[in-house]
């Protein structure tokens, strides 16, 4: 779908690839996941050394497209590939930075957590894992959450009790690495990419192995063939 692909466009700034999600709430459905994967394919084929993802307007991503999901047959719902997409981002063979430009909820927050780094704009937008409030479990994402969110108080508040965070609040937890006003967000993300890459960047294969081992449980849980169907019946 070329019009949809347009809403998930890739641009390059030096050796940094930027995936811009410009699709309203940037929710995940099978067509939008296909568009994202196509963009990631383009990035992997290029010489890019780092990946930044960013939304547009008020949303980074609000998670799964529940309305679309409710219209799918059981078979179609089974093919919904958010779990493999999260796996792909988790083990992406270059440093990844989620530039959270706005609301980052549920599946959108999990998508952001799958990145290596997170930066967020101030003054607008919430970061939240509201699953408890929606009576949903994390199912195949519970290890992603465990390996990216610090144990103890932060995990209890953020993952178990679905607390809502402003940029300042989420930075204090360590889950977001840095924050700035919206106008400076992309520059901040580019700066982080540069700092991470250093002089020569990283060997893709080695980085992929390291990520696979570091996030071992999350990778296993989200690998193809190991997906759990979401409890969509409850929606």
């Amino acid at each position, binding site marked *: 779908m070329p019009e949809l692909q347009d809403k998930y466009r890739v641009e390059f700034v030096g050796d940094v690839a930027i995936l811009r999600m410009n699709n309203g709430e940037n929710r995940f459905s099978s067509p939008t996941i296909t568009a994202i994967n196509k963009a990631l394919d383009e990035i992997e084929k290029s010489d890019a050394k780092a990946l930044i993802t960013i939304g547009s307007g008020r949303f980074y991503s609000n998670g799964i497209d529940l309305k679309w999901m409710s219209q799918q047959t059981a078979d179609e719902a089974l093919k919904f590939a958010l779990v493999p997409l999260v796996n792909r981002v988790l083990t992406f063979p270059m440093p990844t930075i989620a530039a959270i430009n706005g609301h980052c909820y549920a599946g959108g927050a999990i998508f952001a957590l799958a990145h290596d780094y997170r930066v967020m704009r101030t003054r607008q937008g919430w970061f939240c894992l509201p699953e408890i409030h929606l009576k949903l479990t994390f199912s195949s994402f519970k290890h992603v959450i465990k390996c990216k969110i610090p144990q103890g108080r932060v995990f209890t508040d953020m993952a178990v009790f679905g607390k809502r965070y402003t940029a300042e609040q989420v930075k204090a937890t*360590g889950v977001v690495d840095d924050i700035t006003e919206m106008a400076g967000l992309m520059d901040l993300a580019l700066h982080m990419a540069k700092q991470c890459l250093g002089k020569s960047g990283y060997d893709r294969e080695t*980085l992929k192995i390291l990520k696979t081992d570091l996030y071992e449980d999350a990778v296993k849980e989200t690998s193809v063939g190991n997906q759990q169907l979401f409890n969509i019946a409850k929606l």
Partner: protein
Amino acid sequence: MAGESTSCPPGYSVEFRDDVAILWMNNGENRFNIDTIAEINRALDTVEGSSLTRILITTGVGKFYSNGFDLNWLGNQGPEINEEFVGRLYKLWIRLMTFPVPTVAAINGHCYAGGGLFALCHDHRVMRTQRGWWCFPEIHIKLPFRPEMMNLLQNKLSSPAVARDMLLFGKKYVAEDLLKIDVVDDICEQSSLIEVAINRARTTLGKDNYSRDMLTRMKEDINNNSIERLVSTPYYQAVKSKL
């Protein structure tokens, strides 16, 4: 007392100061191979055999705490020796992690890769300021950790962000950085390093000391996850009953 011992014999030796045992590593970059592991184990035997000892400090001499595995030597060995090396290394880590007295790594200089792992197997770390990098350079030299090593390291680090920077992206740290992320407990000038290490151990010892048996069992329980991973590898199993 001076932090450095200029009269320290070459190689690996143990010095006793009252109830403190200091394992001096005076072997250049203090890299790990089958021979140096054996020497460290002999030194640890000496420490364990001294019933009055209540604290173990390990430290290097000169510019290096330890630069990790002896890659030059390893590169010249066949696969069997490589595998034996890994097994004996895992045994040493487990021994250190469950050592029957409080342990402090007094990091006098560069601490890279396997050296960092060795240091993390201690109860505490203190580090000198102004010289010496701490780094896991695996990403830079394209030599990934074995999964069980990654698992051990993760269990020893305080947060996902630290694990990311340190283990994935091979960031270099100085003493002040490590203090901020709780990888070391104290930092000081080199001349005070041993004293600071001993003080840290004494704080941990408290008034009542610990039964060696209880301390070992407690350390085994707390490190259970890492230990099981290491023990279940074919490398460990192959050397399990070797001396």
